[in-house]
């Protein structure tokens, strides 16, 4: 093959690759962009576009009816009425949003705190018993909610936590996910660093708080993002553990939006995805690092 021929083939390959990526990029972004642009439509426009869709649903009558369905990327007229309605006139959405915050923030902070201590314990001295315990943590981490919710439900009943926020908080805080991942990060710290600290006379606590944790800062960010999305998205736990709708996070509430309020739904959906998207914009590299570290037995 001549050089020129090779170059042409290479260019064709790059062209095809770019096309594939562009195709997937459109598919991946379209739902997000559509949600955002639709949130700037007025109630009339939403009902004109999707009337037939939301007139009949599993949750009962929704009000708007129109014969045709049109998918529109750009609103006829940009309107902030939906946002104004959500923010000023329908406090229940903001309350549910606040519920989500109330669940997620303590879980992220305290799961990381518990995990920081535990992963140091796992990474620093490894014995057979500790390997076995770690092994159990990994298996536990892999269990889907169908399995873990049963024990969670039992404990919540024994401790009379069912129906309170603690039923969500406590299992979340002690979830082994962060322990597993942070242990991997700490184990990447070269042993010589710790040894040097020891020789300098650092105590165990100093090695933990002054050497290991600062070195794992990136890892802690990554894990915080991963825990955040997981619990921001939560659906299964509140359905089982919280009978009272008042305490439900927005993720569950959004799916049961009331009849006649469907035009608000897009605005609520956008407000709901703002915090994780902001995190993503600032922390994409951390997210990637966190996922990469899950390679090998995430389990």
């Amino acid at each position, binding site marked *: 093959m001549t050089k020129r021929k090779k170059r042409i083939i290479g260019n064709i390959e790059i062209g095809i*690759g*770019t096309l*594939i*990526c562009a195709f*997937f*990029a459109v598919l991946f*972004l379209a*739902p*997000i962009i*559509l*949600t955002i642009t*639709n949130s700037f439509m007025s109630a009339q426009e939403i009902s004109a576009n*999707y009337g037939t*869709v939301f007139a009949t649903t*599993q949750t009962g009558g929704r009000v708007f009816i129109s014969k045709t*369905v049109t*998918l529109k990327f750009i609103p006829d007229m940009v309107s902030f009425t939906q946002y104004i309605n959500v923010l000023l006139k329908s406090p229940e959405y903001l309350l549910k949003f606040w519920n989500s915050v109330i669940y997620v923030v303590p879980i992220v902070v305290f799961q990381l705190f*518990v*995990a920081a201590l*535990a992963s*140091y*314990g796992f990474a*620093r001295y*490894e*014995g057979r018993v*500790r*390997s076995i315990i770690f092994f159990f943590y990994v298996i536990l981490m892999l*269990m*889907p*909610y*169908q399995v873990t*919710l049963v024990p969670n*439900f*039992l*404990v919540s009943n024994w401790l009379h936590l069912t129906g309170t926020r603690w039923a969500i908080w406590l*299992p979340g805080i*002690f979830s*082994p996910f962060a322990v597993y991942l942070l242990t991997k990060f700490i*184990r990447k710290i070269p042993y010589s660093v710790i040894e040097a600290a020891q020789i300098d006379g650092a105590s*165990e606590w100093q090695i933990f708080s002054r050497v290991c944790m600062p070195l794992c800062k990136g890892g802690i960010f990554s894990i915080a993002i991963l825990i955040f999305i997981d619990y921001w*998205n939560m*659906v*299964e736990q509140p359905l*089982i553990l919280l009978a009272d709708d008042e305490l439900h996070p927005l*993720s*569950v509430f*959004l*799916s049961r939006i009331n009849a006649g309020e469907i035009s608000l*739904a897009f605005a609520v*959906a956008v407000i*709901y*995805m703002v915090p*994780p*998207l902001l995190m*993503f914009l600032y922390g*994409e590299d951390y997210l*990637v690092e966190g996922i990469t570290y899950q*390679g*090998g*037995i995430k389990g």
Partner: protein
Amino acid sequence: MKIAALLAENARKKVHTEKSSRMTRKARYLSLAYLSPSLIGVLTFFVVPFMVVVYYALVNNPVQAEFVGLSNFISVWNNRAFQRAAENSLLFSAIAVPLAVVLSLLLAVVMESKIPFKSRFRTFFLSPIMVPIASVVLIWQVLFHFNGIVNEWMRMIGAGKIDWLKSEYALIPVVLLFLWKNLGYNMILFMAALSSVPGDLIEVAALEGATKWQIFYKIKLRYLSSTILFVAIMSLISSFKVFREVYLLAGDYPYDSLYMLQHYMNNTFNSLDYQKLSAAAIIMSLVIIVLFFVMYKAEDIYGKDVEG
């Protein structure tokens, strides 16, 4: 890092620490103190109640507490609703997992080539990970409703309307949602694995006249084999969690073909049938444990094969 390698490395470290320092024993107990908050929590919220779950699964009811052997398991296993839920969940996994592996591998391979706007594309592919399912479900409903956009397109090309969410086709929108959410995650894992293929190996192969396809098939795929298995099993495990998507799309009582294992569990929770609940949870945990050991063994085997 692979777990087997970790264990080996830690064994080495252990020897090292024991030789070099006399404070080992004290530090050992001290490090147990670091573990204790997590251990207490995990024992309280997961392990101890799970033992009770095992107990519940083996007795006829919590009050009489008569040992009944496997009869709870048998009655769950023969339960029509459980069977239907298990079939649906397995069918979903059988469709979604291969697609999740192949498509994300394709994306990772393409992303490894010299295409422009690489980091932009990476951002685009990752963004669904961060978007809550509840937020995009509205769009899915607009698309796949009986009077929705997709049917509008179907009409234009002259095909018949399909009630996507309320028919045997209902798995398709859910598979698409699952892929939309998970491809980016898998792609990152594959990209990390691809970048760890030694460059000199590929150079030598190219010098000796191997085609790109040969390099991919004979070298890269071999290095990727453990990651492929890992991604496949992780996708399988996350496909067990697809209830979230189904619930948000179709609610508590979806069409029959979308009735997943978690729906079965929710209904059993509502009827407070602890025996069934426990037996079902144990059956599912056994599936996960088997998958875990497959992964664990495979990492051993493949790890040795590739790393020598």
